[in-house]
């Protein structure tokens, strides 16, 4: 991070558009070594700031998108703690999409990981300045003054001054040298590591939070787009007579596909757009369109056939992936027993409750957008590219996100809205129907995995061969990318938590015929399912207890320094598993027709172990209990972490039981929540979450790591209950739900 500095009034107005006054501190923080943080005309342009106003109110910049993970509250708590602020004075200003804020792409469970320390330093610096101002006023020693609950207190005289009454003087104090700033000790934390309610709770329970779909601009229009059922198909011809007669419909026109250049953009699919004076008329007009499509080359795509293709490919030797070690063939030759298995995960879709939508206003030389985006900067850069408007004339306002799960980091819906606004010369909100969302997404890839493992006479694993095939996310940016990339394989495949001396990972070809994207926990869904299912099969073959078998496979205590600043520590992996086994009473007698299954996974630098109890009655599975333990280092907001893990259990359960996007003749076969189902309350298990006390460790990911363990733990529990091994998701395909 850069030095913390005061922001002058003029720059503050220019940068953030907020009223000045009081103390305004800022600093720059890079979330990614690739980040470029531009300085505007040599002035100090911070990407984080805290403003303390004369009335005592504290305003913080939230540069990350809020989509249910509680980030606004978590980051605010870090500053407030160091500052000794009273929580009720904290408010947040949501940042627009701008490179000046550093990397804002809210994904990869990394916000807290990267922003915690800068946030704390800002709070501590502001506190030091308030103390200096108070000490000067009282002619006291700074050492005799301390901050508590929004006051500076003189410990000798018990005099106290409210923060707000000190800001005028404190603003004149020179920024203290960062070496003199001491951060609080873990045992002194007031908010960090405790339970804080969401700052946005009140808005959520009164229906007053503004999501993208709630944005209203004077004279705005509403739009729906009919897109080709086959990915990248185009409009051959269309008849808009009926649509144009729909009351409320104002215009119907063709929207060409905006093809992204190779790189990091998403473009827009194109289709036929219906502009109306309300959302319903736009939807209805769209339904009445008669369109002939040029389906293009993806028309022949069939997901069932593709599953067979991938299954055949992983029967053959693939490309050996770096990170493989030892001689797996020798291990197999010398083995007492070898086991083989093939696993499948289908295409999946995010289906956040708030459908993709965006509101845009294109005016001659400038663009303003209001949208629920995870990655506002990419959206902004895309708009500059496609509409040839200078970046500084583009504003992307980030609303609340009604769920994101990765879908809303792809800004295709923003590009659509701007293209429509440009065409009709008015502000417009494009709203996807749920069917649009299910049928035109950036899908979580399908995968096939072949595993072969060997056991020695003691039931120890001596060899592990894993062949994987899944369409790469890179295909969305670089067409014809036909192999999973290194960064994808590094999500649980090359870096599984086990210690196996003969390990071989092979990568097989998998082309993309849909737009492929990332979904909550991404490739870990594949690796978590394959790894944990197979370990369970090995444990059974070795006639060993599954938890003990996992512990043995994790092996002796060791720390692996990876390329990142967060080394993998096998001791922590074992600790979460031991805790989960303990709290779930692993080994206890369970009712007839019940089964227990275990899974562990290391993702986003966090350690998770989960045990699931299912009942299987009349061949129907009910998930009864979920016990999850996470070690995410310093636990910033404990109740929020619990909430995230509870939610991840339901998200993982939904995909295990129901999640499947299938494709026939190039078109997605599912439509809505009735055929792309979700876990509902009546089927929700009891979820018990434990957080390992690791307050001296740096914080690691929370939003995603609870997902990958669920499907394998459920399937392992079903095997435990019934002896039936499910190697292909989802369970609904086997009549089990």
């Amino acid at each position, binding site marked *: 991070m850069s030095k913390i500095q005061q922001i002058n009034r003029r720059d503050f107005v220019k940068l953030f558009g907020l009223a000045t006054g009081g103390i305004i501190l800022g600093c720059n923080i890079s979330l990614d070594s690739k980040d470029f943080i531009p300085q505007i005309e040599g002035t100090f342009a911070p990407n984080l700031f805290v403003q303390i106003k004369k009335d005592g109110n504290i305003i913080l910049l939230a540069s990350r998108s*809020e*989509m*249910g993970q*509680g980030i606004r509250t978590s980051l605010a708590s870090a500053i407030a703690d160091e500052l000794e602020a009273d929580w009720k004075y904290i408010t947040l200003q949501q940042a627009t999409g701008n490179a000046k804020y550093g990397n804002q792409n809210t994904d990869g469970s990394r916000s807290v990981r990267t922003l915690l320390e800068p946030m704390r330093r800002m709070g501590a610096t502001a506190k030091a300045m308030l103390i200096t101002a108070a000490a000067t006023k009282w002619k006291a020693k700074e050492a005799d003054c301390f901050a508590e609950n929004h006051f500076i207190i003189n410990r000798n005289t018990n005099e106290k001054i409210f923060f707000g009454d000190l800001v005028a003087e404190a603003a004149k104090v020179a920024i203290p040298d960062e070496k003199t700033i001491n951060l609080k000790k873990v045992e002194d934390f007031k908010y960090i590591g405790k*339970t804080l309610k*969401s700052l*946005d*709770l009140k*808005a*959520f*329970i*009164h*229906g*007053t*939070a*503004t*999501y993208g*779909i709630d944005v*209203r601009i004077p004279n705005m229009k*509403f739009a729906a787009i009919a897109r080709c059922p086959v990915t990248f198909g185009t409009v051959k011809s269309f008849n808009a007579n009926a649509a144009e007669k729909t*009351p*409320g419909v104002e215009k119907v026109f063709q929207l060409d596909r905006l093809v992204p250049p190779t790189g990091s953009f998403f473009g827009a699919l194109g289709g036929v757009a219906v502009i109306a004076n*309300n*959302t*319903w*008329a736009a939807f209805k007009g769209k339904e009445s369109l008669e369109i002939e499509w040029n389906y293009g080359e993806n028309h022949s795509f069939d997901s069932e056939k593709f599953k067979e293709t991938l299954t055949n490919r992983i029967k053959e030797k693939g490309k050996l992936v770096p990170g493989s070690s030892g001689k797996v063939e020798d291990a197999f030759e010398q083995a007492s027993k070898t086991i083989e298995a093939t696993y499948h995960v289908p295409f999946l879709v995010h289906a*956040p*409750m*708030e*459908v993709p939508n965006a509101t845009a206003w294109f005016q001659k030389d400038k663009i303003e957008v209001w949208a629920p985006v995870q990655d506002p900067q990419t959206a902004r850069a895309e708009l500059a590219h496609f509409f040839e408007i200078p970046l500084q004339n583009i504003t992307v306002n980030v609303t*609340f996100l*009604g*769920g*994101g*799960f990765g879908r809303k980091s792809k800004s295709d819906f923003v590009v659509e809205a701007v293209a429509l606004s440009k065409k009709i010369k008015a502000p417009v909100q494009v*709203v996807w*129907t*749920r069917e649009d969302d299910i049928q035109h997404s950036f899908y979580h890839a399908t995968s096939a995995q072949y595993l072969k493992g060997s056991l020695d006479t003691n039931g120890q694993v001596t060899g592990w061969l894993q062949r994987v095939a899944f369409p790469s996310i890179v295909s969305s940016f670089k067409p014809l990318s036909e192999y999973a990339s290194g960064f994808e394989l590094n999500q649980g495949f090359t870096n599984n938590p086990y210690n196996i001396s003969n390990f071989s990972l092979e990568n097989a070809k998998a082309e993309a015929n849909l737009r492929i994207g990332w979904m909550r926990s991404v490739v870990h869904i594949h690796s978590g399912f394959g790894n944990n299912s197979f370990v369970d099969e090995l444990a059974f073959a070795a006639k060993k207890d599954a938890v003990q078998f996992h512990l043995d496979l994790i092996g002796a205590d060791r720390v692996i320094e990876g390329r990142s600043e967060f080394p993998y520590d096998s001791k922590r992996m074992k600790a979460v598993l031991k805790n989960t086994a303990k709290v779930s009473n692993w080994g206890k007698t369970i009712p007839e027709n019940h089964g227990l299954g275990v899974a562990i996974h290391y993702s986003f630098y966090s350690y998770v172990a989960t045990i699931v109890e299912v009942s299987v009655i009349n061949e129907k599975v009910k998930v009864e209990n979920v016990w999850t333990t996470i070690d995410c280092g310093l636990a910033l907001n404990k*109740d*929020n972490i619990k*909430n*995230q893990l*509870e*939610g*991840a259990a*339901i*998200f993982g359960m*939904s995909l295990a039981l129901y999640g499947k996007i299938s494709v026939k003749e190039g078109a997605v076969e599912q439509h*809505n*929540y*009735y055929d792309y189902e*979700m*876990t*509902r*309350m*009546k*089927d*929700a298990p*009891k*979820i018990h979450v434990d957080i390992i006390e690791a307050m001296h460790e740096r914080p690691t990911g929370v939003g995603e790591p609870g997902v990958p363990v669920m499907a394998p733990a459920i399937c392992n529990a079903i095997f435990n209950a019934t002896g039936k091994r499910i190697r292909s998701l989802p369970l609904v395909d086997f009549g089990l739900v």
Partner: protein
Amino acid sequence: MSKILSINGKSYTIDVQDDMPILWAIRDIVGLIGTKFGCGVSQCGACSVLIDGILTKSCSMPVSFAFGKEIFTIEGSSPNLEFLREAWNEGNVPQCGYCQSGQLIAATSLLDATENPTDKDIDAAMSSNICRCGTYSRIKKAIHKAVALKNESI
């Protein structure tokens, strides 16, 4: 033709097609945006409102059905809804918050009809509402808490 829609005790004169779903009349014509669109086909409950006290998926009922009736939305207030809000707040229930308008309206309907709902009653009443963030266990706990708050207040 202008018609009158009564929402949370207030009358709105609106000019809409009779077949427009109540949801869009509330959101796009009246301008109350707390009631949410989720699926359009009565599957997710994000659009839940009460019409003359009856829980209704507003995305799937034409606005003509609501003429002359009283619509209750998340912008409204009732004793049960306020107990639920307090419990939601205490239990830190929402994550993204988007489905919670519908969840709270469905829970209000449950408490209006059932004084002391059991887990089974709650499952039955709340399983038409999807929460993609997965806050179900908190919602269930909060409904029990709301009942407790209500009983304490008597």
